[in-house]
């Protein structure tokens, strides 16, 4: 029987069985989920086994306005990371180093993320790295400590699943719409316990940035990890990156990577088919990413749900979101727009948003923010003049960081504010206590910023739906 890429990568990293001890080739570290892990090492007199396979950055708590950190707890946390990295010899890309950024943006852009390796990080969106054909898991702090000390993880083997996108991507449909549509179809627990392979023509046609958006949101569908089998798009993306192999080593790496396929006769524990041709630009209306519909749809009526607990959940979500049943999505007005996060802050995302914004103005009642995912993305966008497109339209142009995705830094919604956001979670209070989040693509967020409400971005950019 054939093997999946997941089978191959898993098998090539097993150190011991019963229980399975999996070797980790890249451990990414950030300030929020690591201090207690380093403290654990210190208390037990342990060292970091492989600092050369470990990289730390600052992203969650950093202010993005370029100013100093004024929150004493955030400052203490960032200082702790600096001290811990010094003490344990872990390379750190600190704020201001020019290499800092959201951990899931810098891994791929530096060429550290690559096909066939195992990656962990104390962050659920580590699934992002699977876009390059890596096996990448989010872990908790105890596991962070375990990996620091042993470079391995004790991990029961997850089940396998394939999400096959059928049909060609319609005009104006983005990777964000594709993954939101898939989650809306299968639910937020649809991939629970599984490592997900994304396949189909729509995935093959996507850029690396687009695949990262898709893999990033695997966890919002409940999946343990998500990946795309590497192809020429992957190899072209990796060639020439800071950490990518060169010369004969590059050729050797290519041979290795080309063997990382899922065989035609490989089987999965579960298969789901998503028809992308029926999809329209997506907008979430509720308090989890599965509560999503098309921009031409309406806020659902709880009475449409026959199952009592589901009905109660929808009622509760609408109450939190302050939405009336049956409201057309296009009539929902927004106060804030956030373009950024590990889901949608890469150069291609910013180009896509800028293409909608160019020559237009942010609606007078909207405050809009663009936060590049890394210092490198920021520099590249500025070299392309994208920063001016945004600022001339009335957007704020910020420094790299997680920013308003999770409200752990000064970028938060005020209670009751409604935001069109390119991030990944619309949970209650996620972007600030009482804040109301609608998940959309960068293009849809840009369109909402201009119109002050949700509109089908395809009407702004030309060709019809």
């Amino acid at each position, binding site marked *: 029987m054939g093997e999946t890429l997941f089978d191959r990568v898993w098998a090539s990293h097993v150190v011991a069985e019963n229980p399975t001890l999996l070797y980790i080739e890249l451990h990414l570290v950030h300030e929020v989920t690591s201090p207690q892990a380093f403290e654990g090492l210190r208390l037990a007199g*342990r060292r970091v086994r492989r600092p050369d*396979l470990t990289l730390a950055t600052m992203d969650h708590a950093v202010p993005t306005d370029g100013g100093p950190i004024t929150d004493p707890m955030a400052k203490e946390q960032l200082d702790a990371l600096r001290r811990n990295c010094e003490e344990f010899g872990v390379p750190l890309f600190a704020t201001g180093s020019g290499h800092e950024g959201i951990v899931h943006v810098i891994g791929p852009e530096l060429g550290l993320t690559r096909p066939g390796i195992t990656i962990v990080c104390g962050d659920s969106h580590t699934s992002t790295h699977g876009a390059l054909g890596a096996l990448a898991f989010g872990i908790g702090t105890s596991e962070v400590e*375990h990996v620091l000390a042993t470079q391995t993880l004790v991990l029961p083997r997850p089940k396998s699943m394939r999400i096959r996108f059928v049909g060609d991507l319609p005009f104006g449909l983005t990777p964000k719409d594709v993954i939101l549509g898939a989650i809306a179809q299968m639910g*937020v627990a649809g991939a629970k316990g599984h490592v997900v392979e994304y396949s189909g023509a729509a995935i093959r046609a996507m850029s690396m940035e687009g695949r990262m958006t898709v893999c990033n949101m695997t966890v919002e569908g409940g999946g343990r990890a998500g990946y795309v089998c590497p192809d020429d798009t992957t190899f072209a993306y990796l060639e020439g990156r800071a950490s990518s192999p060169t010369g004969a080593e590059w050729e050797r790496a290519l041979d290795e990577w080309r063997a990382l396929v899922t065989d035609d006769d490989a089987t999965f524990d579960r298969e789901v088919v998503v028809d992308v041709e029926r999809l329209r630009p997506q907008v979430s209306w509720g308090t989890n990413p599965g509560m999503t519909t098309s921009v031409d749809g309406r806020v659902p009526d709880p009475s449409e749900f026959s199952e009592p607990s589901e009905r109660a959940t929808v009622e509760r979500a609408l109450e939190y979101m302050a939405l009336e049943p049956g409201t057309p999505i296009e009539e929902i007005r927004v106060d804030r727009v956030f373009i950024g996060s590990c889901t949608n802050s890469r150069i291609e995302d910013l180009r896509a948003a800028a293409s909608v914004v160019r020559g237009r103005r942010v609606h007078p009642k909207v405050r809009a923010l663009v936060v590049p995912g890394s210092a490198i993305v920021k520099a590249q966008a500025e070299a392309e003049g994208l920063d001016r497109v945004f600022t001339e339209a009335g957007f704020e142009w910020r420094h790299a960081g997680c920013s308003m995705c999770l409200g752990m830094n000064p970028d938060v919604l005020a209670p009751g504010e409604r935001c069109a956001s390119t991030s990944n979670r619309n949970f209650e209070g996620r972007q600030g206590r009482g804040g109301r989040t609608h998940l959309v693509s960068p293009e849809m967020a840009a369109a909402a910023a201009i119109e002050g409400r949700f509109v089908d971005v395809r009407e702004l950019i030309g060709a019809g739906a």
Partner: protein
Amino acid sequence: MRAFRRTTARVAVLDRPNVDTDQIIAKQFLKSIARTGFGQYLFLDWRVDENGNPRPDFELNNPAYADAKILLAGPNFGCGSSREHAPWALLEYGFDVVVAPSFGDIFKMNSTKCGLVPIELPAEQVRKLIDEVDAQNGSEVTVDLETKTIVSPNGETIPFEFDDFIREELLEGRDEIGRTLMQEGAISAFEAAHPVRIDTAALAVS
């Protein structure tokens, strides 16, 4: 890690699906570099209003659930963020066990690493337990990890499945890192057999 074998304790019911870890412990409390101090912030926005007064309609404020050590929850409990602060907060608030039809994968793993026992039961069985607890306006349940059984308020014994290795770790409160470090030979052999492909140190700029 703290050990767990068996408890007979009061039960609290939080019968909602997809309770995410952002609700269990909100982001503003993740700036702490300590491993303790999170219990007081458990479900904060659901538990208290803007003025810090308890919201009477929130389940955990039900007096019948006071001093509960066992939480009966809905499906996909603990979905979302990987923050281990969520099980830390539940433990510190007083819970030893969460019983639900299913858990978020990372939350479940994190719980077992810090001594919170996540038990999965079929949805109908969780429903029946909830009904029994509510019928008696709060009541005691026994959870025994050694025998993998739950004794319901009505005295019914319900068996549950649990990963054998993780169960042993929880029963003994084992230091998993210490155990893995005993496999140093296997780890070194793996490293010797596999050439290094990554070097983060070569990239370091500061």
